[in-house]
């Protein structure tokens, strides 16, 4: 597989550390993982993008879907370790305006838009 997702915990936040490329081929796997966490009651999620080498609009759609789902359950979805490349994608699509970027050590504290 081209994508791996590792789960860890930081306070009340569940961290999904993603490694690999997020595109049409791999996004079902990430979507499934996000849905499973929220269904299991972990509604506060941080997607750690530090290991993501590539994302396109299909991948961004999964983040939007996850954000919507988390908020509908009273939670939130935030992102962390957004590199230059992903920051550009967030800026171009406006996703940076709705998705908070946080420090992995303190997901409560939003660092502002990407």
């Amino acid at each position, binding site marked *: 597989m081209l994508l791996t997702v590792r789960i860890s915990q930081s306070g009340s936040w569940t961290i999904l550390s993603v490694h690999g490329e997020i*595109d*049409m081929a791999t996004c079902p796997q990430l979507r499934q993982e996000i849905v499973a966490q929220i269904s299991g009651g972990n509604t506060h999620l941080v997607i750690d993008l530090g290991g993501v080498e590539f994302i*396109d*609009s299909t991948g961004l759609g999964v983040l939007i879907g996850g954000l*919507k789902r988390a908020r509908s359950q009273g939670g939130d979805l935030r992102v962390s370790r957004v590199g230059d490349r992903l920051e550009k*994608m967030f800026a171009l699509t406006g996703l940076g305006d709705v998705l908070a970027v946080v420090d992995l050590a303190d997901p409560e504290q939003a660092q502002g838009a990407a």
Partner: protein
Amino acid sequence: MTTDLKPTGGITLAIPAQPEYLSLVRAVVAAAAALDPGLGDARIEDLRVAVSEATTNAIEAHANLGSEERITIRCDLADDRIEVEVQDHAATGFDPGDLESPAPLDTPGRLDYEGGFGIPLMRVLADEMKIRSLDHGTAVQLVVYASPTAKD
């Protein structure tokens, strides 16, 4: 005797309409673009995303129509630019005039719809983007110009 430092010419990939091939397409296009010394890493990344978007749309077009034809990705290195054309062979092309830009994400209700970024992204990431409807399919042409100086 002169040495032509800059390779010109092209390659064509024909892939099954399956998402598993996206990564391969991106790798091949990026490797071809890297042959051009005028294309820095940032522009190659722009092209990689744009090609991924075009190929994703092509795969979706085939899936929706149950077509088993292959998708072709033609990559041409010219003197001052790289041109990539992604062509699907789905039975009916779509009308580029029908396309609407997606509403900003903070528009109420916009989050309900997760797609719609592909074509706007291609437009901003490539220097030129053209969509042509063919008798059988759609061709998306993406052009990125080389810069004689910038490495990035």
